[in-house]
């Protein structure tokens, strides 16, 4: 049985650590809201007189942006958790501790995510609802399934971050790789362009990548666009991506530890 107490302590520490920077926070909330308003402004103009395009109404588009960008603000993954520790050598002391290092990363990210949920997502959501309005969830059952799918979506994002971080064992500069990874996530996850409007060939490509599992699947469930069967399938796909990507990362993590040489003392 794994002991949870140390992980909870890490999560709590992270949560409290974040509370110290109030001004930073306000800026973050504002930045999330502005991002949502920009895209809402664009789609407001694109729709013009049309009430719907391809069966998608403007409130549905707004819902897609508010939820995916809001969740983007919640889903915290510290992309430099491992790279920083590998570069300054503190990974060595981390490995000596009787806890799992990826486990510690999950704990810290979870603490952060909880903080973001309360203090970033909620204010941004309230502001967005007041100013642009979003659709209500398709029902209580769907809302619960949406929450499950959100957790799985976070899992996919986390697994991608974890695996990419492992490249730090081989490359000195992971900033570039991380930045490019985030470009892919931003463009292909649906948080900046609703995936309904992607051209057909692009939708085909998206089926083969994990990106639409992050935000778009939860959004579709929230809007009631999927049948129960489709939901089961999509959630299974989310689970599959988590396992596949995590295993790839774990493989690199084990290889990296064997290769690791920390200098100095």
């Amino acid at each position, binding site marked *: 049985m794994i002991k949870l107490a140390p992980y909870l302590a890490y999560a709590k520490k992270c949560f409290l650590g974040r509370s110290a920077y109030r001004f930073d926070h306000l800026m973050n909330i504002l930045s999330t809201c502005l991002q949502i308003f920009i895209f809402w402004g664009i789609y407001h103009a694109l729709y013009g007189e049309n009430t719907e395009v391809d069966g998608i109404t403007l409130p549905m588009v707004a819902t897609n942006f508010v939820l995916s960008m809001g969740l983007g603000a919640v889903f915290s993954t510290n992309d430099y958790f491992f790279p920083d520790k590998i570069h300054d050598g503190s990974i060595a002391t981390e490995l000596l501790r009787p806890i799992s290092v990826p486990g510690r990363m999950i704990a810290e990210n979870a603490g952060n995510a909880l903080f973001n949920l309360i203090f970033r997502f909620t204010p941004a959501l309230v502001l967005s609802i007041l100013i642009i309005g979003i659709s209500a969830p398709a029902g209580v059952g769907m809302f619960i399934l949406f929450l499950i799918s959100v957790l799985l979506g976070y899992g996919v994002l986390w697994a991608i971050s974890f695996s990419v971080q492992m490249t730090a064992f081989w490359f000195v500069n992971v900033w570039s790789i991380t930045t*490019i990874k985030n470009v892919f996530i*931003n*463009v292909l996850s649906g948080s900046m362009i609703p995936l309904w409007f992607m051209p057909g060939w692009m939708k085909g490509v998206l089926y083969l990548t994990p990106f639409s599992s992050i935000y778009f699947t939860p959004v579709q469930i929230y809007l009631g666009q999927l049948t129960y069967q489709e939901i089961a399938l999509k959630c299974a796909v989310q689970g599959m991506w988590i396992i596949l990507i995590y295993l790839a990362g774990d493989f690199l993590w084990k290889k990296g530890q064997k290769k690791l040489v920390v200098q100095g003392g």
Partner: protein
Amino acid sequence: MRDIMHLVGVYTKTTARSWFQYRVDALLRSLAVFLRESTGVIVIYFTLLKFDNLNGWNIHELLFLYSLLFLTYGIMIIFFTGLRDFGRMVRSGNFDRFILRPRGLLFQLIFANADWFAAVGHGGLGLVLFVISAGKVGVIWNFKTVVYYLFAIMGGVLIQGAVFLFLATLNIYLFETSSLKELFYYNMRKFAGYPISIFHRAVQIIIIYIMPFAFVNYFPAQYLLRKEDMEGYPQIFLYLTPVVGVGMYLLAYLFWKFSIKYYKSSGN
């Protein structure tokens, strides 16, 4: 004068050398900046495959609008990196070294450092977008339009440089200004990638009168493209970019001159 030019040459050589010390790394970093900044462009490209125009602007016109934003930033950052990072220099006490040298402080700040990754990433993207769009937006490139374009670029560089100079100067009074920069500069710039006429009136007022990105790309692009949504604004705005640039820069410069006397070192 020759002495100054020589110093500028030496500074440029050494900074370029230090930024490009590790070639593969420098290339990767520039590529990463290029791709990161392309995000918005890729998104608008896919969006316009579905909806063929945004408030009357087609994809080439939108790329042209974007290109002005990136070109001016790419040029600006070659000169104003020192001001972007001024807060950090003040906090670490490194700025004190500049005071001891027998040259103007602003001169040193402007020429002693240049973020070449940002310059290549942003400027490169601006160039690519310009090349893609310039022939397809129906602009007749003759003496008049080329001169206008060059003045517009210069004005756009000065407007953004003035904002960096102003925010750097604030560091003399305030400890931390990076959040202010994030809010006023980087967040507002996100709006400027699109025709401002699509946004709420309040956003338009901010972007014309307070953080005047509209003069960096929207109005210059309007002069060359003459889209219908220009009707909502006074015609004179089409010609003001260089004036706004020089005016803002002079104001920021006076603010700097006035404030630098009060500089107190935080280092020891």
